[in-house]
């Protein structure tokens, strides 16, 4: 799915959160959304997924106006993975949670195909053994994978992920990002993911958007836009660069005293 965001603005009361943000993601691309805390990354993802209504601007999916699209139709196109959930109290098990991802497709009436898709996704996310475990009995990382699986269960054309690897250990961070990359390459699913790991953005992203104070500060291939100056301007961190197997790695320089 091609996504086009043009001059998107979002204000909370008088505070400007997003200021004329424009992006274009071709179908099947993996875009890392980067920036310091409070830069407007989550707000941008929520505006695209329909959770927040932008103050002005345009969002188009394959040339169709996403903002004017009926909520259910939009939900069929987009898979959203939130940063935080209240899952502990829900009492649902993993299977029920993943199946609930099919809601927008079938108005709540599930058929065998829905169950097969849910099982397929559970296998893809390595969650088959936890299918009947309650969400409140899972670790933060396992729960995170369940919510990614729920978004994947609708077989969306675009995935919007708010820090999808924040609770995952090294193995599952890599597995999750590998899977998302595979989705983008093989199934042409467009991925827009907020990442804090700049090296992961370089390794997996075709594009990266660096947000600062609600504006797109830099936009382009991650390796090109993540220079020492950009990292200092956005994060106020001094970074060193190491080159390994033809890839640049960013190493933040720790404070070593005076």
């Amino acid at each position: 799915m091609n996504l086009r965001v043009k001059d998107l603005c979002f204000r909370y009361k008088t505070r400007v959160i997003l200021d004329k943000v424009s992006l274009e993601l071709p179908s099947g691309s993996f875009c890392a959304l980067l920036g310091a805390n409070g830069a407007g990354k989550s707000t941008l993802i929520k505006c695209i997924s329909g959770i927040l209504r932008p103050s002005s601007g345009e969002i188009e999916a394959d040339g169709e106006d996403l903002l004017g699209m009926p909520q259910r139709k939009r939900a069929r196109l987009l898979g959203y993975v939130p940063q935080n959930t209240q899952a502990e109290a829900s009492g649902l098990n993993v299977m029920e949670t993943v199946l609930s991802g099919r809601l927008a497709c079938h108005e709540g009436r599930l058929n065998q195909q829905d169950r097969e898709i849910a099982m397929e996704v559970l296998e893809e996310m390595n969650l088959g053994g936890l299918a009947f475990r309650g969400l409140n009995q899972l670790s933060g990382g396992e729960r995170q994978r369940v919510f990614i699986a729920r978004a994947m269960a609708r077989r969306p054309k675009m995935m919007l992920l708010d820090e999808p690897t924040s609770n995952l250990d090294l193995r599952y961070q890599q597995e999750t990002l590998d899977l998302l990359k595979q989705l983008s390459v093989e199934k042409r699913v467009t991925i827009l993911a907020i990442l804090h790991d700049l090296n992961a953005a370089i390794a997996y992203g075709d594009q990266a958007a660096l947000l600062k104070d609600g504006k797109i500060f830099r936009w382009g291939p991650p390796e090109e836009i993540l220079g020492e100056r950009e990292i200092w301007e956005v994060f106020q961190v001094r970074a060193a660069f190491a080159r390994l197997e033809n890839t640049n790695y960013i190493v933040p320089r720790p404070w070593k005293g005076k």
Partner: protein
Amino acid sequence: MSGHGISGSPREQLRRQIAIYHRKQIGLFILVILVGIAVGYISCFSGVAQVTPGRLLATLFPKIWNASQPLSPTEITVLLQLRLPRIVMGFLAGVGLAVGGLVMQAITGNQMASPFTTGLSNAAAMGASVVIVFSLRFMGSLQLATVLGAFSMALLCMLLVYGIAAVKGLGSTTIVLVGIALNYFFSALNAGMQYLANQEQLSAIVNWTFGSLSQATWKQTAFLFVVLAVCVPYLASKGWHYNLLTTGDESAVAMGVNVRRLRTVSGLMVTLMAASVVSFTGVIGFVGLVAPHIARLLSGGDHRRILPLSALLGGELLVAADLVGRTIASPVVVPVGIVVSFIGVPLFVWLILKERGGDEG
């Protein structure tokens, strides 16, 4: 056969697990239904009038079953006009309160919520108090006027809660907070009414607030049945939506749920059911809180399952509580509201301790 279809493959194992899980859930439902039939049966044949299954059969089929003495006309009247409507009303009231409790917990994201979270019980009690204190009549009947007074005040309370909460976008916290505020407001008005009441009126008001099924009639039962027949299927059809809502408003919106509409319509239906129950039976607490929790303990968190399960458990709990109330100190009848609280409070505290223990363990 594809690799996934091989017996013993992860997919096959998962399919088997799903089948076992479904069988367990069906077994649970059958068990709960059987318990309900048993409670209804015992309730039907327990009480001051000696109505036994044998005597009922002798009345219905005198030629085939002549081992027992048939029921007298008075006993038939007791069975058909007092005991049966009482049992059916108890069951329907339990269904309404339990479903209402579960849905309120889902739409407010608060497992301590009940149908009365929005202040409805105190509003209804205030409506009944006004009628009793000012001796108002509707079509010559004080009882009918009491029902209408309680019902209209409960509806007014609902409109106030949702009207005020709508200003702030109908968030779950706003609904609960406005409900608590109005609860205190109507409680104060109710206290004012009791202050104005004379001894006889005060006794009538207090009696009403106990919650009782003794005034149940077939007409009231039919009215409640119609209300539930409209509301419960609608609420049951939203099981998936409540499932999504329990994982957060944002997730639900992104999944295509119109959260604002769901919260408003569900809340209004819960209030309509609870107002109908309260106006006929008085305030019966705890069913709406305890039944959904027992359903969750037995069957997990899927609202497609626990909504009908809560309904059955709520109905059964109320019929069982009324049975205890009618028989424990017979011929004195202890109001069902009191018995439910006696059973419900320890059960609820136990549930809280069990849940807290799990959290901290």
